[in-house]
């Protein structure tokens, strides 16, 4: 994640809104072993306060898990810009 301020208020809202668009259960962690938090919980996502240059890990489980992971990685890689 290269976003200038890290996972602060606006990026958190964008990430949570995107996660909620999928049916799968989606978790987010700051290490590959967790701890994992619910990526659809705005309160929990905002509380992670992941700084710039940290790596965010996602895991998803459900019918649209692959699409969810692709979309979330694209959001983070795209610096949280609005999609087309």
């Amino acid at each position: 994640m290269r976003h200038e301020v890290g996972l602060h208020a606006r990026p958190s809202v964008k990430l949570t809104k995107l996660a909620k668009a999928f049916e799968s259960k989606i978790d987010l962690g700051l290490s590959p072993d967790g701890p994992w938090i619910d990526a659809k919980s705005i309160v929990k996502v905002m509380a992670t306060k992941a700084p710039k240059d940290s790596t965010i890990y996602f895991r998803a489980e459900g019918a649209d898990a692959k699409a969810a992971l692709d979309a979330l990685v694209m959001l983070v890689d795209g610096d949280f810009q609005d999609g087309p």
Partner: protein
Amino acid sequence: MNDNVGIVIVSHSADVARGTAMMVEQMVGREVPLGWCGGDPDGGLGTNVEAIMAAIDKAWSDKGVAILVDLGGAETNSEMAIEMLPEARRSRVVVCNAPVVEGAVMAATEAASGATLDAVRRTAEELTPA
């Protein structure tokens, strides 16, 4: 037209109410019906029942409306405004026990996903330590 829960912001200060609403609009978007009010007609601090009722009307959604308040009178006047609503609407409006700015952004983020009024309130109130 809108099937997301509406959010109403009630502050003693017109500037705080409007500023909070701007934060919600810019951070979350316009897909959540939004109403706000604050201050008295002379430009001083205060809240009043009529303005709160108008804000609820502006933010109305059949899924309900969650109100975020700042202090004292904002809460009691909001409760009074709810009591004065038509009976069919009364049970679909709640006052959240949450900080006004943070609560409004959290509640609106939840509401934007099409969540129920209950879920919206719970998200806002998650911020408040038990």
